[in-house]
């Protein structure tokens, strides 16, 4: 796998970024969510990356047509393992528990597996569901996001986390922003001024919930 100094395209913005960036996208419309998601997957597949998506809202037929329009065969990328589609609930809320440790282990394993299979980079886009706010372990969401930032320094999986502003309270959105070093603002990816470095966040901000 290429080192973390290589740059990648996120698909929904023209700029290139170091592999392993951790980006937060606050969405307010379904079209916006799907467009970014499809473009992110397409860019990964076009660059030959291992590409993964956790979402409850991907219509495979629509994605197939979208990729086909760019000369990417949906069946081929699924068969080759370049593209993996999974439901958010299945991955994040396994056995109705949100476990940061399990998720971080999955991410690490995904990176190592992609590397072993010869992919130049790996990427994942995940849509967080509002039920994380009530599920067991959901109060560790911010800790999880901070630890993802730490993990990606060692295992540079490019990660985009989608949060629907209509389904999360405004103050939660602000808290979520604080644990993502990059954010998407009106289609542009910018350095997040709210970001609290994960080491600092984990040491000071999530006392009582961090394990």
């Amino acid at each position: 796998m290429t080192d973390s100094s290589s740059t990648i395209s996120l698909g929904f913005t023209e700029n290139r970024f170091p592999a392993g960036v951790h980006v937060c996208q606050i969405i307010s419309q379904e079209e916006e969510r799907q467009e970014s998601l499809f473009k992110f997957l397409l860019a990964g597949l076009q660059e030959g990356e291992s590409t993964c998506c956790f979402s409850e809202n991907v219509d495979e037929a629509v994605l197939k047509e979208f990729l086909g329009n760019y000369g990417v065969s949906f069946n081929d990328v699924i068969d080759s393992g370049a593209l993996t589609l999974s439901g958010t609930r299945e991955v994040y809320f396994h056995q109705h528990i949100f476990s940061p440790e399990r998720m971080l282990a999955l991410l690490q394993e995904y990176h190592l597996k992609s590397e072993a299979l010869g992919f130049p980079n790996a990427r994942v886009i995940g849509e967080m569901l509002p039920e994380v706010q009530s599920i067991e372990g959901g109060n560790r969401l911010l800790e999880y996001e901070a630890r993802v930032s730490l993990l990606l320094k060692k295992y540079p999986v490019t990660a985009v986390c989608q949060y629907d502003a209509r389904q999360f309270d405004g103050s939660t959105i602000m808290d979520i922003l604080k644990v993502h070093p990059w954010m998407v603002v009106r289609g542009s990816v910018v350095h997040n001024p709210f970001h609290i470095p994960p080491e600092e966040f984990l040491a000071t901000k999530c006392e009582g919930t961090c394990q």
Partner: protein
Amino acid sequence: MKANKGHELRADVLGQLLLMQSIICNLPDEKSIFSFTCRGLIDLPGIQTAVHVREQKPERDGSRLSFPLCSGDTDFGSLVLTVDDYDLFAPYKDYVNNFCFMIAVILEERCKSQKNKELCVQLEKRVEDRSTSLRESREQFHAVFKSTSDALIIADESGSLVEANEAAASMFGYTPEELLGLQVIIVANLKPAKLMGVTSQGMVLAAKEVVDGRERMVLTTVRNSVAVGTKVA
């Protein structure tokens, strides 16, 4: 950047205010906007708490600073910040003031946009109601038009027949379809006369011929289109 009283004006704090403004545009409603904003503002230097209140408050009340959320005639209350270190916060005060004004502008735009949407829905409903009413009225008219025993024809602005009922067709010896499109000559300035109890001032010019011992009318038409109102010479 240097601010007053020797405190540094931090670029990241200003960037934070700018980005908050951009993100606010993505948030769905007032509740979400204020909850997001208040959570963000407590990160400003010198600020302890931030709350949104519905009413206007005095600009300064002890350790509390109030920032109005007004745009034009629209008042969205104010943001009240509890300041625990005024000197630290002072360089940002004007920026927060501008930020609050921008929130009010965004909210006012949303209100206007919402009102426009509601107006559009109302207008669409009115158009739909009128269209339904017009359609029903036309249907009623056509039912009467078709079933009446009076011969009725309708000509368009160019004088061409666009509708004719069975009675008219029967009277002229045509089918209703044969009458459509004919440009007939209607004399419309005759001396009023009562025909079958109805006052009439006009007539459709036609020739009367006898075929196989039966009388039939042949409507007089023009080869080339002539303007409505042209006098019969």
